[in-house]
């Protein structure tokens, strides 16, 4: 196991970089999901879908909040461990 420790370290920093990527992508995904109603709403003009739309939007919203909460933990630890200078180049 001891021989694997450098590999483990590399994996850890690799994981951290991907978490940063995820944090960057989260608002993009959120924007996409929030704009989805634009695609279906005008077409189905006669169906009265305000309630389902609302439930969908609040659901997405809650999902994004949960994802942001999960991501924020390792990100804070990351910025505590290493000074921020190194990460922009990563």
């Amino acid at each position, binding site marked *: 196991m001891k021989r694997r420790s450098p590999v483990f370290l590399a994996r850890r920093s690799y994981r951290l970089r991907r978490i*940063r990527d995820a944090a960057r992508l989260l608002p993009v995904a959120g924007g996409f999901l929030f704009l989805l109603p634009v695609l279906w*709403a005008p077409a189905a003009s006669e169906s*009265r879908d*305000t309630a389902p739309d609302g439930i969908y939007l609040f659901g997405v919203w809650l999902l994004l909040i949960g994802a942001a909460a999960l991501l924020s933990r390792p990100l*804070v630890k990351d910025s505590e461990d290493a000074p921020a200078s190194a990460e*922009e180049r990563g």
Partner: protein
Amino acid sequence: MPFNLLVLACVTYVAFLFLVAFVVERKAARGAARWLRSPVVYTLSLSIYCTAWTFYGAVGYAARSGLEFLTIYLGPTLVFIGWWWILRKLVHIGRQQRVTSIADMISSRYGKSNLLGVIVTVICVFAATPYIALQLQSVTLSFGVFAAAGTYGWAMPDTNSTALWVAAGLTLFTILFGTRNLDANEQHTGVVTAIAVEAVVKLLALLAVGIFVVWFVASGPADIVARIHASSISDWELVPSRWAGFTLLSGAAVITLPRMFQVLVVENSDERHLATASWAFPLYLLAMSLFVVPIAVVGLEVMPTGANPDLFVLTLPLSQGQGALAMLAFLGGFSSATSMVIVASIALATMVSNHVVMPLWLSLRPAQSVSGDVRRLVLLSRRLSIAGVLGLGYLYYSLSGGSSALAAIGLISFVGVAQMLPAMLGGIFWRGATRNGAIWGLGIGFAVWVYALFLPSFGPGAALPIDVFMQGPFGLDWLRPYALFGVQGMDPMIHALFWSLTLNTTAFTLGSLFSFPGPVERVQGLAFVNVFDTERAEPQGWVQGRAEPEALLVMAQRILGDEAALAFFEAQAQAQGKAGYLPDPVPEFLDALERRLASSVGAATAHAMITELAGRARVTVADLMRMAGETAQIMEYSSQLESQREELTRTARQLRDANEKLTQLSVQKDAFLSQISHELRTPMTSIRAFSEIMMEGDMPPEMAANYARIINEEAIRLTRLLDDLLDLGVLENGTVQLNLKLANLSELIERSLRAASHTRPERSFTIQRDLPAEQIFLRTDPDRLCQVLINLISNARKYCDSAQPELRLVVRQRGARVIIDVIDNGTGIPRDKQSLIFEKFARLTDQMRAGGAGLGLAICREIMVNLGGSVSYLPGQGGAAFRVTLPLRLEKSPHERAA
């Protein structure tokens, strides 16, 4: 509900907020407010995004256009969960550059240009005024609801006077807690905590009304879904342009609104709090908007037709006979309105005073003759600005009559502040963004906003004549405010948003591409864009040696206050490896000083003030090389070398100082030896001569007595000299016996003044004391302390060369230490001599005038060391000044403790 009770509740609530702010400020002053700066308080303070517009207006918005109100919260949600992109950088820059407001941030990024600061300030004031008016209106309306519903025959109160009282109360609160101090990086712990409390109140209120509506008026969520289906709200059609446009707009507004910038960046005390806020703030927004549609649906159903949907939150519980709930809702709305107005007026007042008043004052006053305390001027200008901003809001309210729907005003404001988005984002992500580009972009965006949205919002024929709406100005058809360039049929709000941001961004980009940035601009651009790469402070190439540290100290004292400035200078001097209060004016020090000043008066003003004393900043070859990206690697290596070199330089400077001191001491020692031989020889000679005469005998007894007296006097002189030397020796060895007891400082000073008045009794001094401050009981050796004070006062009496000599004794208590300053109004001690005066045998003037062996201050210093304190020279006080510091309670002598 009686109207009186309402007013009473209101006043009680406000008094409670005053108490919270007051207690927190007190705690923060004692440094005991760590927990108050937690991520929770930070997140709650961000909730000033939810103003009365959210609290009341969201329901009205939902009643009019269904789910569209959600866009106002979806935009900020996206910005916050994407904090890794923008917010993290913004907050980091804000803390590193000690930014005081959004105007300061933009002006600082573009070469500390004050013109940009002024433009941003103007935009913010224009955009915020209607918004503040909106808050006053909502409070007045909600008062009106209670007055109208009252069964006690209350007439509708005069709405104008209600708004006036609210505005006056808010001004008072904001001035009291928003302008307490200039320093501490512009943070207002008391206000922020009060805002957090208000955030909790408004959330609870809205949730309570929502739960009441869903589970008590309707019968649960399923029933609500059914009612939504049946309601007229379901006729709502999603307009894609508005949906996407408003999401973008609210996302932009959440970082560019001055009040949001204030709590988000300026009041941030720890960058890690942002990580918590990234999910907790969207959660707060979600909770705030969760019950909006149910309240709107049930309100439309239950309330009579024609009832104002903007007030459903209040009127719905009232109509169901729930007075207490309505009261809670009222307090919630009141909280949302007041918290927004408080923070917005603090933010705006900071901008107005830093970017308009201070530069005007700097350019108007006669050159160089700065007098008086600038802090008082800045604080005064801030207080007046707060009153002015709130006055403008009130004026707008009473002029516009407060009739239009709440939502419209809020969105108009949003489009106004969104004009800062290109300059801001460009500033932190694009190094090529220049000052000219920013000026063009902001100017054009602002002009389009005023013409296409702000002025028309007053209604056709009010601010713009009707023919301008129909045919365009001067008959130019393509310039109609709602159809610029012939684009017709767009929603007016989206139309203005689209054209203003498009033209703004285009002008900003083209202006940046075709202009050339100045040196300061390029350095700042690098510092902002690569903020995570450049952790080290970047000295700005101030010309070394031009600035006199003492002049800088005098200026810093006027802005930061005496104590803070002295502490800052002392710390800087220590960092350079020097003792005392005056660091060398190296670029690093000037840069640090500029940032420190910037946290009080803004970057542009601080830069101008230092430029005046230190000469214009010069960008060195090293700076230019750092800016060239390809050389970054080499620079990193060389910067390591440089920091090593700096370390060496500092050590060398210390060695040089020490060597210089040794050389001077050796010269002094030689001088003293000849001096002491002389001093000893003169009395000895006369003693020998007179004793020889007396040995011969045969003289009248009165003559013999006379000679004996002379011999005695000379012997006394000798003894005194030897006593002094002995005293010094004992003090230095630490074998002195201290006689510790309790003593009143005022009495000690009185005693010292009396004893010192024997020195040059012919001079009359004006003595300034602060008797109440002197009433401190010390546990120390009073006789030794007196000895020090007598020495300092006699020195002042001896050397103060003013025609009307004055002596000032300032006593202060700082925690467990007491500070006594002895200040005269003479010419003081020249800088090169300041480090010498505490040495043994040092004498600045000729020996005859001094009349001593030059041991006085050396003895003082040793006494103070034995008393666990210090005595030092205090520069920049307009005369010679000495500071004595000692502990309030001296338990044992330091040497005993060490043993």
